[in-house]
């Protein structure tokens, strides 16, 4: 990735300036981190590390999922709403059996995997439609996903309104919340199960990207769709597979998210896609397609999480945190663009 990202030709000496420009984002983030630690050294603790990891677990899943469509040269604005839909479905089906005001009072206590699988299938189906629009109907991914976003939000809100009269769905089955929140304590470091699931998903996606035909084809389609086509790659099928894979992960991650937070409304998931896209971009996934690594995506998520948690920890005005995040994204995009600008 380093090689391909460098605008240098082989044989040319590597200039300090280029090193700084290519790593500007990491330098900025490192400086911010140092600032946080200097202002409040207690930030450096295993407890905080555990918090940050638990908070980033679902974000990593979302970022890994959305990175696929981005590497294909597209994007997915419907991700956040699909995550929310998955959360609503699982929450409504997995309320605590002792709770009398359940949305489905007559529903027997379900094993937790049934609603999770159901949520994954539903999200997978919506992403299949999305992928079909992009791959077969050649709709611009931005517009296709914007439409899907509204469709999904509309449907989930109608469902929310119908089953719970727009009251938050809470008091979840302790087996379900425990599925995400339980864990072990290792020397003051809390390892929640949710972190383990994230690691499993990351490994799985890393495997797909690097070891399977689907992964190689994904990079080829994103890198040069014409070359892929001429080489006999089935563009439609591979695109569909990547989108469906993303959808399944939104479903799984959405279920984990609601198990982690303990309640759901139709606002769940709003804006999550933008966080995930931002993390990908900061991690070096090119919005032009064809470039990106899972390592970069995970680094992007972690850096964002460390910075936003750290800035709040030293009591920076939360509005200012938005500003800083925005600046970081802009720097990342400028650097990304610089690498591909064709000089005439």
């Amino acid at each position: 990735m380093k090689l391909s990202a460098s605008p240098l030709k082989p044989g040319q000496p590597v200039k300090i300036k280029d090193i700084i420009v290519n790593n500007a984002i990491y330098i900025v983030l490192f400086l911010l981190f140092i600032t946080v630690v200097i202002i409040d050294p207690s930030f450096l603790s295993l407890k905080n590390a555990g918090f940050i990891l638990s908070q980033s677990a679902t974000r990593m899943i979302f970022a890994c999922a959305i990175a696929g469509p981005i590497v294909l040269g597209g994007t997915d604005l419907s991700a956040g709403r699909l995550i929310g839909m998955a959360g609503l479905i699982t929450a409504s089906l997995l309320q605590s059996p002792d709770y009398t005001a359940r949305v489905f009072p007559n529903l027997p206590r379900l094993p937790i995997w049934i609603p999770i699988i159901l949520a994954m299938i539903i999200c997978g189906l919506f992403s299949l439609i999305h992928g079909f629009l992009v791959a077969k109907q050649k709709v611009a991914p931005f517009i296709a996903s914007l439409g899907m976003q509204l469709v999904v939000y509309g449907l989930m809100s109608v469902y929310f309104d119908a089953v719970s009269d727009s009251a938050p769905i809470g008091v979840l089955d302790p087996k379900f919340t425990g599925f995400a929140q339980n864990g072990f304590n290792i020397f003051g470091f809390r390892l929640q199960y949710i972190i383990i699931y994230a690691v499993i998903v990351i490994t799985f996606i890393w495997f797909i990207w690097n070891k399977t035909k689907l992964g190689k084809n994904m990079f080829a389609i994103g890198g040069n769709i014409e070359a892929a086509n001429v080489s006999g790659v089935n563009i439609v099928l591979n695109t569909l597979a990547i989108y469906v894979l993303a959808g399944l992960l939104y479903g799984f991650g959405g279920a984990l998210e609601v198990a982690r937070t303990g309640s759901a409304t139709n606002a769940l998931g709003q804006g999550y896609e933008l966080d995930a896209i931002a993390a990908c971009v900061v991690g070096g996934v090119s919005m032009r397609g064809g470039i990106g690594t899972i390592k970069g995506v995970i680094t992007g998520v972690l850096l964002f999480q460390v910075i936003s948690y750290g800035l709040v920890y030293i009591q920076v005005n939360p509005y200012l945190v938005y500003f800083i995040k925005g600046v970081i994204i802009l720097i990342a995009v400028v650097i990304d663009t610089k690498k591909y600008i064709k000089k005439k």
Partner: protein
Amino acid sequence: MMQQESINKDTYLLEMNGICKSFPGVKALDEVSLRIRPYSVHALVGENGAGKSTLMKCLFGIYQEDAGEIILNGRKVNFSNPRQALDNGVSMVHQELNQVQDRSVMENIWLGRFPMKGIVVDSKKMYDDTKKIFEDLNINIDPKAIVGTLSVSQRQMVEIAKAVSCHAKIIVFDEPTSSLTEVEVRHLFRIINKLRDEGCGIIYISHKLEEIIEIADEITVLRDGKWVYTGRCENITIDQIITLIVGRELNNRFPPKKHKPSDEVILHVENLAGEYMPTVIDASFELRKGEILGVAGLMGSRRTETVETLFGIRKRKDGTINLEGRNVENKNARESKSNGFALLTEERRQTGIFPTLDITFNCIIANIDKYTNRFGILKEKKIAEDTKWVIDALSVKTPSEKTKIQYLSGGNQQKVIMGRWLLTEPTVMLLDEPTRGVDVGAKYDIYQLIIDCAEKGNAVIFISSEMPELLGISDRIMVMSNGRVAGIVDAKTTTQEELLRLASKYL
């Protein structure tokens, strides 16, 4: 690589018989035949537009021929896409390499047919197979290197390896040496010879006749979409080939030259060089008032880069531009325009027309300031007048000025763009292939416009790949070769042979 027993050196590996292909207004191929033997390199030559690439596109199924047959290994074939051709052992090393730049060499070679081990791509086998092919061909490239970091010649080697990996029996090289150094050319030739010795039939398309004499066994010459000659290379000289390539007579295809260049030099360009390669390396020339300076050169001679650098849409590294006695910078198109330059770009579809907008818009867009009053409001009446002038004066055939330009023919689109620049009242008109993709009738109109432009006292630089039209309307012809001016000759006394020789001066 090859099944030795199935190959007889005397039968043809590939036969293309009586291929015809027409496009609206043009007969691109007229009964063209090409027969390739195994164990041989067959050169395919002809001027730009002679039909070489159309013929290859028919072979690869990018175009469907109107008539004729293609026989591969004694079996009639008709491919519908390049992939199918590749599956049948017909492969092409393109001049413009179509590769996934950000992925590795081996992934590019095996794309679309990765070796698998269960559900996992067998990277080790992919690496070993690539390595083996590279060793066979004496190519020293790491299979894991990222393609985008390789040199053009290395990327070309990767394409060749890909062809070999598909067990290609017919390999087409399209201008393979146009961006290679002498050492790289030697290496390429060793590889081509090796492929020939293994029984491949190689189609070698090039303008470089010295190379052809060296590498090829047989040669086929095309001219104006027709087959002209096929023979052994031992029996022919370069001069004979040149005569075969250009041998056509000039008839009344051009309007009379009414304009008279004066002695007054209005543009003086010295040592013009661009910043980012490939670009112009060194160009010096003078342009007189009322003169048409033709610019000749082969593909890759960087004529386009020269005028684009002059016009400021490519970065200039060196050189001076002196217009009517004062030095101008021409840092960008805006500045060049106000200095009195106009540029009709080569790629009309990409950088000329605004396809979905109407003729009026396409006429005035380069000159929008002239049609704006001091409050920033457009002067509709003046716009309508000038658009009408363009349509009438340039005889643009269109139902109305509201017609979207994409619905006009190529020739009429080109006239509108010419009109756009004439409305800016330029001193120096730069025309980059103004007649490309234009039918014969409209060509005459465009020649007339160029001559009219010179007659009014403007100076014109006229790039063309068609030698007859350069000779037909230019006063002098500047020949470019590999980014340099190879010579400036008088159009009245020069010959196509001389132009072709100059064009290969710095190759």
